[in-house]
């Protein structure tokens, strides 16, 4: 069966999962944290029949101070750069134990959760290995808040051009981050895995359905989730959802899937808002000059055009 045809139970406003959150409240995330919002929705969508593996980072630290834990599913944290490798071990163990009749014969998704640093930088090798090996019940979720937030807002390779971080500060000789954001979904897709998708918490049903689809399809899946961080972005905490919408509607972070190599844009943005409207809410871009914003706009236009071409090349 083509991965695109694999059935899964859709989340709609009517069928929105009820009951306890898989990630319990009382965690220590900052007020207005978009990362924990995305995580909570993803986990709620999957229910309770899965195993979670966290990388070190904000979401691990704020949910698991001994002796308390927010996790209502089996959860394992080992270190920063190896969530993909740890999840590989869990997934392989479940497979073989099931085959040998030592545990119930039921598919259990193993969900690795890491930040952009734990994914695009220090964890890239472990992730690449896991994607290449083709673990069947393996879902990797990158929660992208565009910097190392847990350690105090240092730049990562997923930090956008121009952003001020503590290791890419703006100054008389610097515009802040001087490199363009690494294209992680493309890197994941290049492994030939059956399912890659982007998601944003403002489009919560889309986000929740993507992890359901990832769980239904056999083979490694990679989800790249936009995760606003008011603390690190110098932004009002109440703006996390709004900026999650603007980032999509400005074409900066398009919502798309790559299913068996076929690109599908989930939300066509025909009348994009200017990137300036997105940037201006966030203190990390405050120092940018109009010409810098123009440069960013041009890059966003180009990348979106490329994506449309990719989606056009591979009709589903």
């Amino acid at each position: 069966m083509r991965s695109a045809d694999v059935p899964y139970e859709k989340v709609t406003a009517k069928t929105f999962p009820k009951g306890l959150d898989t990630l319990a409240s009382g965690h220590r995330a900052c007020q207005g944290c978009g990362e924990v919002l995305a995580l909570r929705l993803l986990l709620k969508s999957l229910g309770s029949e899965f195993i979670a593996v966290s990388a070190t980072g904000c979401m691990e630290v704020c949910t698991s101070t001994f002796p308390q834990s927010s996790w209502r599913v089996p959860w394992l944290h080992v270190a920063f750069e190896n969530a993909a490798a740890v999840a590989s071990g869990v997934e392989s163990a479940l497979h073989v134990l099931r085959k040998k009749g030592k545990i119930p014969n039921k598919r259990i998704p193993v969900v690795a959760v890491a930040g952009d640093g734990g994914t695009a930088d220090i964890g890239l090798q472990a992730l690449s290995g896991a994607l290449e090996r083709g673990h069947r019940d393996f879902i990797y979720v990158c929660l992208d808040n565009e910097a190392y937030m847990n350690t105090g807002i240092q730049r990562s390779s997923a930090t956008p051009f121009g952003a001020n971080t503590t290791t890419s500060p703006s100054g008389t000789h610097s515009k802040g981050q001087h490199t363009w954001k690494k294209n992680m979904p493309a890197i994941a897709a290049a492994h030939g895995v059956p399912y890659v998708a982007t998601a944003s918490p403002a489009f919560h049903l889309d986000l929740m359905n993507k992890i359901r689809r990832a769980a239904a399809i056999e083979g490694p899946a990679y989800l790249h989730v936009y995760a606003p961080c008011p603390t690190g972005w110098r932004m009002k905490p109440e703006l996390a959802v709004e900026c999650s919408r603007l980032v999509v509607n400005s074409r900066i972070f398009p919502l798309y899937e790559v299913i068996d190599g076929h690109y599908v844009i989930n939300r066509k943005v025909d009348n994009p808002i200017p990137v300036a409207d997105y940037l201006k809410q966030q203190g990390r871009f405050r120092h940018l000059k109009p010409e810098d914003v123009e440069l960013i706009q041009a890059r966003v236009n180009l990348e979106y055009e490329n994506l449309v071409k990719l989606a056009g090349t591979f009709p589903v």
Partner: protein
Amino acid sequence: MAKKPIGIEVSLAVAEAVKLCDADVVAAYPITPQTHIVEHLSELVANGELDAAYIPVESEHSAMSSCIGSSAAGARTFTATSSQGLALMNEMIYIAPVLRTPIVLAIANRALSAPINIWNDHSDIMSVRDAGWIAVFAENGQEALDLTIMAFKIGERPDVRLPVSLNIDGFTLSHFIEPIIIPDHEEVQAFLPPNEATVKLDVANPISIGLLANPETYTEIRKATDDILLASKDKVIEVFKEFGKAFGRHYRVIETYRHEDAEIVLVTMGSISETAMTAIDEMREAGEKVGLIRIRLWRPFPVEELKAALVSAKVVAVVDRHMVMGAPNGPVCLEIKSALYDALNPPKVFNFIMGLGGRDVRRVDFKTVVERSKSLVKGGQSSFEIVGVYE
């Protein structure tokens, strides 16, 4: 009828032992001189002789990460490495014991870089000596196979649940073809119970493993691991005894050789001990009162057993196979010295480093050690001496 030994390379015998133990998951990355172990295991999996998941990870860091995940999910888990591979695993090596994930790790001991060198010494294992693993050293091939089987039993015991490293000297043991008795699958099954992980990742009973600990709990969590590790010595001894009963081959945490009336006692670990015993026989014939203690259980360190065995000697000459930089004593000597420090009339303890990066360890080197020790008794040795170093 007693089983007959067959000629087999020690690496392959270790892999065969893993097969006999019905390991569920093997996650490994190749490095000389460990490679033959995992090559043979992948072959066994490919042939259907071992029903396991073989995860061909992209690095040793991921090998140990996957092993921790696999063990936490309740699977019997094995990996093997050497030298740089163990160094790359280092971060994970320190995590596995505290998360209480039993894993059997065979280390074909090899020198650490730099300079890069593929040959045997103990610098790799010594870099992780404080991590919380149970660690045993094999002297010969039979012992390597037997200890592999025992390692699973020890580590997976409900009152232990710790990872175990099996140290075999790279090349000088791993690559030798030796006569080894390979037990039957049924015998091993009768000896080794299934891995009953009660604390594991299970959707029917969700728990969190690997939480963050702040200053008010970190010390206690570390201590809990150390308590379990120290208490594991008795369990190791128990398993050694059970093994002796089942297979007729008897193991102790330390072995002694002609040491009762010895005035000078050598202390060694690993395969050089056989050379040392031959040297001792020759020295005994020449009238020297020399003997040997071989340490099999390196962690938890068998303090009482060593104290009892060494306290009546006049001189203890400890051999280390690891270059300690910037300090007076090697790791084995340090432990021996601290074990003997509060004895009423402690022997003199001298430290000799030999066999680094595969430098041959010969009978004559042990004779040199004995000669040097005899002159050092008259006064001296503020720090280790390297045997046979070219100045």
